[in-house]
């Protein structure tokens, strides 16, 4: 590990170029992602934020290799991401630990697939669990852990195979606010230690500001990139930054962008459900008044 601090790894570069994803057959096709171009530079922490159903998970699944692009390309370090690989670690919103394996065996799982022998696996897993403050729980089964701990194990498991990027789909979505904040700090810490690229999906504006170098805002479905907001707050980030003017400015900006899109998405639904008949102008303004 000889990465100079000012120059992160040269690997883990994700490039999404004019990506379009359609589901279903031609006649009844649903366009989930529409002409998205974006990138995650090596070692960068990038978040995607956008209204529900706008195609965030779909985008991430293409990067992971679970979904094929209908048009456009997605590459990591120049290679198409056409199937899942241990180079791209993934953390899911749902708890995805193997319930029949102890915490340590869960972390060892990826290393076992690589053919690493049992002693080295155990050593590596214990080191990582120690970093995440989970060593005391190495022999517990997942069902015996709290939600926050399960997600921490999930992150550690994804990091164990030394991936170039970590893909995270609302990993803290199911956690309570307090646990969430702690998890964000743990994740930041892990990210700085491992110096890998992270593509992070969230609904939470504060979470995206606190964690990211850059935030992409997506439009309502079919998802497109609406804006790209650099977060230039210094690191390490601390919770009290939440009251500094730069933070508040970014937050306001993100909130405006997202509110606009959410209302657009809801406006469509309301119109579909026949609310348009209520003599309300169904558009961002009209709905805002309705609420």
């Amino acid at each position, binding site marked *: 590990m000889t990465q100079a601090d000012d120059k992160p790894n040269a690997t883990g570069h994700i490039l999404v170029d004019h990506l379009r994803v359609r589901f279903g057959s031609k006649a009844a096709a649903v366009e989930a992602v529409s002409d998205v171009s974006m990138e995650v530079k090596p070692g960068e922490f990038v978040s995607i934020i956008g209204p529900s159903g706008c195609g965030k998970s779909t985008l991430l699944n293409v990067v*992971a290799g*679970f979904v094929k692009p209908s048009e456009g390309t997605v590459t990591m370090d120049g290679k198409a991401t056409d199937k*899942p*690989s*241990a180079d*791209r*670690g*993934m953390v*899911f919103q*749902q708890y*995805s630990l*193997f*319930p*029949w*394996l102890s915490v340590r065996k869960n972390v060892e*799982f*990826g290393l*076992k*697939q*690589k053919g690493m022998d049992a002693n080295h696996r155990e050593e590596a897993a214990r080191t990582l669990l120690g970093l*995440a*403050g989970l060593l*005391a*729980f190495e022999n*517990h*089964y*997942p*069902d*015996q*852990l*709290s939600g*926050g*701990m399960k997600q921490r194990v999930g992150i550690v*498991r*994804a990091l164990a*195979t030394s991936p170039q990027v970590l893909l995270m789909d609302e990993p803290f979505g199911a956690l*309570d*606010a*307090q*646990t*969430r*904040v*702690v998890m964000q*700090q*743990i994740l*930041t*810490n892990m990210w700085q*230690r491992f110096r890998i690229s992270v593509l992070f999906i969230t609904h*939470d504006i*504060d*979470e995206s500001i*606190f964690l990211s170098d850059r935030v992409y805002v997506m439009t309502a479905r079919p998802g497109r990139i609406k804006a790209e907001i650099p977060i230039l707050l210094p690191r*390490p*980030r*601390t*919770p*009290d930054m*939440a*009251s500094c003017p730069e933070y508040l400015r970014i*937050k306001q900006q993100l909130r405006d962008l997202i509110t606009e899109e959410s209302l657009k998405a809801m406006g469509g639904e309301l119109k579909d459900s026949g609310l348009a008949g209520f003599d309300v102008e169904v558009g961002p303004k009209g709905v805002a008044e309705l609420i």
Partner: protein
Amino acid sequence: MRTATSLNRVDPQAAEVAQGPSLALAPKPEVTPSGVSSAAQQAETPLRRVAAWLRSALPKLLMTMLSLGLFVAFWYFATKYKLDFYIRFTNIPSPGEVWDNAARLAQSDKFYNNMYVSLRRILLGFSIATVLGVALGLLIGQYRGARALLFPLFETLRPVPAIAWVPMAIMLWPTNETSIVFITFLGSFFPILLNTIHGVNSVDPVLLRAARCLGTSEYGLLRQVVLPASLPHIFTGLAIGMGVAWVSLIAAEMISGQFGIGYFTWEAYSLIEYADIAIGMIVIGVLGLLCSGAIRILGNMLMPWMAGPTHGGQK
């Protein structure tokens, strides 16, 4: 918004986590309840635990003895007074006769041999059914091609009860022994197969995706994810399969047997040894119970995670 306020409220210790290299701090809200309860268990002495168990189990135990006692009492009086009201107790052996015959049979090598033969048939037929049922179930559940090819065949054969195969099996297999093992196998094969398929189909897809992201090969996925994830369903299949295996075995032994506890029971009827019929029935019941118990113990051993606080709480 909510998180914004909580960001401000976070204690300074947590803020240190973000900067400091040490992550060893365990966040307060995440102390597990299981940690607390295991400490409480250690404080309890074994003696007190046994006492507590007795206190909770005693009423149930008494009720069990009462209902069994009533049954034997009815049996005793019905045979003593040769009760005859549509069902006839005139030829039924009394509990005393059964007891006496049992004491005699307990000395008989021939009787033990019958038990041994039946158990061997069960073990063989059931083991083959387990290996084939689980292996084919995994393939059919996991691979569309295997499903398309094999499932229609099994769906066609499945409605034919194993016992209906008896004449065909006698012609099909070279010895009587193999045809009985075949019938036993058939009885347990389908429950095991179907439950395994069901288990594979109900594997949480996120586990498969997680495994793929961790670099699992296709075989690794089957062996290390699909199989363990399906184990609870597989064991349901094994428990049902064991029951059906006994049904099929006893029927096959009665029809075509030489030796075996089913044969013994039927022979007792032909020889007018009526007390032996009851003994045969009781032994069949006890052996079946022991086999099901063995499956349950094996299941608990292979699935230690199912004994956790969320699963094995009450039995």
